[in-house]
């Protein structure tokens, strides 16, 4: 069978990334240009700044990736691009670039949902086994997805308000930690103890999550302690917050595995790098005999390799877009 090379573009938030993936699993070359240092100056991602940086970098990242792969555009079978969800101004740069390349070289254009990309990041580590449950956790998403086979996505639950990574960043800000706060909260949590006993958010029978309440609980707690003249123990507060968040994420995920009769779990998204979450899931999955796949750190955060992996399966299924493809800030995974 002829090898299929997908050139993938990802620009949904603050990373400009291009990757070339062979047959949905071999990463030939990936270039990721992160804007994190720039946005750290503002304490979070500024959409207009992100869009400006994407357009400045897009052709350089494309060139570097092709050079790294030692390929040219004629070697490419199809162009995959993240069309959504994400920051609209950022997505537009990747989408226009992908459409232009598809037009110039008369190549198929494959639209890829960002979450499908996060899920298929795992395919770069090990071929996915079905059926599976995917827990997608990042700064923009928190979803539980059931997959019967390749590229069939059934969302069984997700956040009703803030994404889990967003809550981490907000909590970090409230306790005076720098941006991006998620990894620092995780680190501090390991140095502290669960002394503040925060409630488990949306501890019900659904597969949905809610993180705005626990975020507010932390804000109120910090505010009240300050009013009383008490010093906050940052490590303990991080440990307490992380305990509640990890507890609810793992509780609902393990229940989903049981109820759907599934023994494959994959974790995806930037928060998959969270040590507390990794440790808890590893231990629970080992007890329950569940096959757990968590991508390596470089595939947890946004990158085009995952879009190329997902794009390959979308390409095989015949999913195509025309030159009128638009970026979508919000779109359901299908």
């Amino acid at each position: 069978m002829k090898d299929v090379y997908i050139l993938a573009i990802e620009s949904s938030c603050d990373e400009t990334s291009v990757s070339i993936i062979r047959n949905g699993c071999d990463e030939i070359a990936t270039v990721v240009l992160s804007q994190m240092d720039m946005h750290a100056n503002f304490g979070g991602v500024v959409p207009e700044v992100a869009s400006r940086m994407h357009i400045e970098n897009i052709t350089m990242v494309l060139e570097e990736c092709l050079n790294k792969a030692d390929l040219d555009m004629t070697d490419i079978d199809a162009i995959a691009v993240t069309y959504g969800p994400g920051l609209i101004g950022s997505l537009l740069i990747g989408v226009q670039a992908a459409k232009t390349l598809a037009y110039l070289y008369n190549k198929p254009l494959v639209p890829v949902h960002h979450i499908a990309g996060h899920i298929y990041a795992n395919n770069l580590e090990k071929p996915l086994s079905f059926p599976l449950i995917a827990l997608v956790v990042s700064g923009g998403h928190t979803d539980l997805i059931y997959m019967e086979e390749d590229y069939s996505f059934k969302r069984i639950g997700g956040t009703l308000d803030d994404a889990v990574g967003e809550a981490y960043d907000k909590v970090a800000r409230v306790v005076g930690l720098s941006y991006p706060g998620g990894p620092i909260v995780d680190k501090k949590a390991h140095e502290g103890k669960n002394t503040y006993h925060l409630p488990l958010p949306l501890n019900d029978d659904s597969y949905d999550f809610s993180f705005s309440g626990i975020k507010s609980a932390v804000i109120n707690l910090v505010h009240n302690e300050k009013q009383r003249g008490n010093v906050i123990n940052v490590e303990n507060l991080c440990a307490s917050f992380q305990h509640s968040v990890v507890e609810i994420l793992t509780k609902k995920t393990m229940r989903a595995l049981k109820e759907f009769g599934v023994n494959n779990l994959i974790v995806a998204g930037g928060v998959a790098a969270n040590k507390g979450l990794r440790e808890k899931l590893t231990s629970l999955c080992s007890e329950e005999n569940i096959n757990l796949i968590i991508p390596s750190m470089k595939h947890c955060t946004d990158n085009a390799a995952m879009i190329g992996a997902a794009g390959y399966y979308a390409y095989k299924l015949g999913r195509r877009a025309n030159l009128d493809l638009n970026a979508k800030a919000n779109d359901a995974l299908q």
Partner: protein
Amino acid sequence: MNKLFIDTASTKRIASVITDDKIKSIIEEENGIDLSVRMLPIVEQVLKDAQLLPTDIAEIYVIDGPGSFTGIRVGITIAKVYAWALKKKIVPLSELELLATTPFKGNLIVPYIDARRDYAYAAIYDQDLNIYMEPCHISRTKLLEKLPKDREVVFVSYDHIQTDYPVIKPNIDIVKILNKHRNDTGVNPHECNPHYLKMTEAEEKMQNGVLHD
């Protein structure tokens, strides 16, 4: 020689193929929120209408601002990826200079784009597109101070402007601006980026010492 012209910065979105100083094909539409959907199909169509393949284009001229930030980025992304991929010459042009190609009676023309809060993107050109005042983001008051009293000045704008000077609607001349820049060497496609003429609000706040509001 075939040249491709792209403008997505303004009220109108335009793609045109110009061959030997004549417009061979052109599509001009009212700009709107569907710009990112429409623009590449428009480019594809003007090439088809001119019976050309993408490789037949020798030079790309693209408007790099000022104007709608998102609008400019759509046009420039298409143009820079095109120029980079097929190794074509790319020449960025100002939207204000394009507006100044409108025929007018007088000595100087002031292309004017409303930038809200009593500011505008403006420049001043003479009949031959020589620059009298460089494109800038400027308050209305300062702009009026810059206008010479001893010359006949005309404003050109898609916007409704309240001024004592005569204001005319744009009637742009693509061939004129391309001829003016025919000897430009062009830029490296990697460096063909928008000229917003204005920082982002976040950057302005940071510069003014306001952080994390």
